[in-house]
Each structure stands twice: as C-alpha cells, then as structure tokens.
C-alpha cells in the first residue's frame, strides 16, 4: 500500500505512535497540546503531518524526541518501545531538523565545530573525513567548513542543520517545517535535497508542514490535525483527487487550491 523507495518486501513499522497525549502545565494551567494521537510509519516511508498553526504537529515531533516532559501513551521505534528518558542509542536512530535554521545553529560555533562535536558525541573518531563527507552530502563544499552561521544564507544554514541530523547515520528523520523559514526558490532546493538523501540513505521521514503542496510532493501518507487531534489519516492519492472524508480536511484542501 505504501510505496517505499528501497524495500519492496512486506512493510515493517519504523515508528509507531499509539494514543499519544502531550500537555503543558499542571492543574488549572494545564493545556493539552496533543490528544490521543495514533499513527504508524513504515520503514522507508514518508509521512506528513498537516494542520494549522497551534494544532500540535510540531509538539508530536518534540514528544517523540523527548523534548517535552509531560506525555502519555506509547512510542515505539523499529518495533522497540521507547523509554521515558531517551537512551543515547535512540538518538543514533532518530534525528530531527528544526524549523528555523536561524535559531537552530549556535551563533558562536563554526560549521566545523557543529558537525565535529555531533560526530564526537556519537563516538566517531575519524571526524575530519566525516565532516568533509557530510558537507558534500548536503551540497555544501569544503569552503563552508570554517564559516560561522552569520556568514551563511538561510538555505545554507538549513543544509548544515540537515548535515548535523545525518551525522549519526539515523534511520528516521523528523522534519519540522524544514522549509517554512526559507524563500520559495531555496525551498525547492532543500526539498529536492531531502528527496535525494532519502533514496540515498534509505531514510524514513516524518514531515510537519502547513503547506499541502509540500506534503503532496514529499510524502505518501499524511495525517490532518486540528486542535491537538488527528482527524484523518489518508493517502496522498486521496489528497490529489480531493477526496478527503473529514469536513476539516475538505476545508483545508479547498483553502489550499
């Protein structure tokens, strides 16, 4: 049912989220950001999360990465359940690219420091060679290696952020609106890069976006979110034929055409 670029064998679940709820604050201040979200992403697939701002899309990604303290439900990666406190081995399998490339790179660290430290933390020792390789992979040459973030454009920064996420050789990449902070021509470049990297490294993508055309281009399956709940999960084919069943998805579709 799901087209996967590498593996034509029976689909294996790579990321499973079951009944996930995320909330902030306690007692009367409690805000439920995500309520009872469940979805499954197979190995090599690309899954989209769409919805308006504040619908809890990014919160799901942050909860999977362990960046939100309060959550309930079950998350399993590669059919193994995830502990409440993430182990280092978890970060070797799952990585995330943040929305705003202007905020996700340390302003005082050069590209070399960012990638070098990431590689060091994941226990690699041939750091020099790997930094060069990573920069090549994301289409940045060696001349960017010792630049600081303020010497890079938005698209170049996002390429560095993608290189950092690829450094531990993960199998799952969570993409939190990776192109929304970039202008249109650069968006296309980054999306093409992500598509290429996926086929090259056999990655599984979970991509958050409020742009239906981006999700339609990148993903095979998508979930529509509203007010912290997943209202519908559908194939991209259904989206293309404009056959969404839930009224909110229809509304979203109508708005984006």
């Amino acid at each position, binding site marked *: 049912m799901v087209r996967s670029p590498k593996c034509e064998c029976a689909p294996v679940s790579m990321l499973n989220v079951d009944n996930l709820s995320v909330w902030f604050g306690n007692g009367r201040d409690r805000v439920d950001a995500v309520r009872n979200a469940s979805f499954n992403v197979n190995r090599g697939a690309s899954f989209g999360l769409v919805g308006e701002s504040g619908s809890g899309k990014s919160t799901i990604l942050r909860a999977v990465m362990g960046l939100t303290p309060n959550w309930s439900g079950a998350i399993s990666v590669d059919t193994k359940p995830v502990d409440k406190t993430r182990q280092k081995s978890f970060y070797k399998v799952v990585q*995330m690219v*943040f929305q705003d490339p202007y*905020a*996700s790179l*340390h302003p*005082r660290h*050069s590209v070399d420091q960012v990638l070098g*430290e*990431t590689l060091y933390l994941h226990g690699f020792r041939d750091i020099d060679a790997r930094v060069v390789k990573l920069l090549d992979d994301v289409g940045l040459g060696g001349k960017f290696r010792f630049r600081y973030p303020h010497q890079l454009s938005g698209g170049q920064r996002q390429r560095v952020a993608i290189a*950092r996420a690829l450094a531990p050789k993960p199998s799952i990449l969570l993409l939190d609106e990776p192109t929304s902070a970039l202008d249109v021509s650069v968006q296309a470049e980054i999306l093409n890069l992500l598509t290429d990297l996926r086929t090259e490294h056999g990655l599984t993508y979970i991509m958050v976006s409020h742009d239906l055309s981006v999700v339609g281009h990148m993903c095979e399956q998508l979930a529509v979110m509203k007010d912290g709940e997943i209202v519908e999960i559908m194939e991209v084919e259904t989206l293309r034929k404009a056959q969404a069943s839930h009224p909110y998805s229809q509304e979203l579709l109508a708005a984006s055409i």
Partner: protein
Amino acid sequence: MVDIQTWRAWLLTDTPTSRRHAKLSTLYQGWLSFRGNTMAMVGLWILTLLVLTAFAAPLLAPHDPFAQDLANRLQPLWSDGHAFGTDSLGRDILSRLIYGSRITLYIVALVALIAPISGLLVGTVAGYVGGWTDQVLMRITDIFLAFPRLVLALAFVAALGAGIENAVLAISLTAWPPYARIARAETLTIRSSDYISAIQLQGAGAMRIITKHIWPLCISSLIVRVTLDMAGIILAAAGLGFLGLGAQPPSPEWGAMISEGRRFILDHWWVATMPGMAIFTVSLAFNLLGDGLRDVLDPKDSEK
C-alpha cells in the same frame, strides 16, 4: 609592505582553510572593530602603561618607596628630586604611586578572576538545571545582594583580620552576585533555544552544554560587566585601605595613601590628591575599555 598586505588578506579571508586560520581571522576582525573606537583605545593604552609601570617599578621609581626622610617631610609638588612631593614621613609620593600600581593590579586581577567565574558558575547552573537547584542558588545570591557592599566587606575583614588578601576575598564575596544574576538571565533565554535542543538530541550532558554552549554566549556580557565594575573594585579596595582594613602601612596602596594624607588635606593637599588622581585615571581607563569591549563583544551587534 607586500608581506603585510598578504597577511591582512589572509586574516580577512571569507573562506578560512583551517581551524586555526578561522580563529585568528575572527580575532583579527574583532581587533579591527575595537581599534576603530578611539576612547576604548585610550583606555587600553592607559592600562597597558599601568601594567608596564607595575612590571618596571624598580627601574622607574626615582626613590625607595619606604625610605623615610623626616627632614624633607611634606615637600610640595616639583620640589627637588620629588616630582609629586613627599608625604608626612618624607617618602617620595611618585615612587609610592609607582609601587602601588602593583598592589592595585594584584587586587584587580584576583577579584576579576574570582568573582565573575564563581558568578558565572552559579548563574548558569541555576538557570540551566532549574527547579530546586535554581531556587536555592538564587536565594543565596539574593542574600548576598541584600547586604550593603562595603559593610559586608568590612564585617568579613573584621572577622578574618586586616590585610590585602582578606580585602580581595571580601570584595570578591560581595562582587559575585550580580554576575550570577546576569549569567542566569542569559541562560534562561538560551536554554530554550533550538540550538540547545539540537545538541541535547545528540546526547550531550548538562556539563558539556553549560560549559561549551552556554558559557561562550554569557562570557561576552560578563567581560563587559567586569571591566565596568573594575573601577568600583579599585574604589572598594581603596575604601578598605582608607578605613585601615585593607593594605597595612607602610604598604603604598593608593587608598591607604589617601587615608594618610587626609590629616594634612587643608595645608598639603597634594599628599591625598596624587593617589586620588591615580585611582581616578585607572578607573576611567577601565570604564572606557569596558565601553569599547561592549561594542565589539555584544553578540547582538556582531550578528550584523
């Protein structure tokens, strides 16, 4: 000439070729923008001069700073062999000022090491760890902040005994809380940013994040604050000396010299004025330097 041109080009390049090259290039660009600030350069020159004076004190001083000559006491300015006159025991004031620069530098260097570093440590740990640790550390900081500075230093020196080391400790003890406050405030804005989340996702521990990711961003504002506080620290040390709780006679500490000269201030004004001018000049130099450093180091400006 050609050599200098290539060096400049090498340092100002947009595409550094190695880690060392990149570091030198950033340093050089910082120096260039600092050099453009005339007042800051004046401050830097005065302080360089102070350091040189302190190092070369035995060569520069015309007399022994401790040699008394009661026949020649309270000589006026520009008298024979005593450019700045002599004090109540006939000691040459210029020589005492030159030797006193060593004590001033010693105090400044020690306080500048102890206070900001302990403040930075307390502030960043409190800000990053949060929860109970934050509560406890910041309440301790509040308690120290609530004491009047000189009074706490006085109490401390009174308990431990007068002397220059205890004066340094006492000043450090009263100087660290503002640094902790600044560091904590900066840490709070930094810790929730994406680049800290990103390094957490690489499995980095709290210690690594605090020292390698949060400190570099706090240090520039702390350095600025330290240079601006230096004037206050010199004055506090002079104040303790003036009250007789800092450096002990016959040590030529500037504050203590003012204290001695106070008795003759109406008839022999220069005895107290000359060390006062020295304190004023050095404090002013630190203030100018701090102002210039703020322009160079402030991350919000250097982003542009």
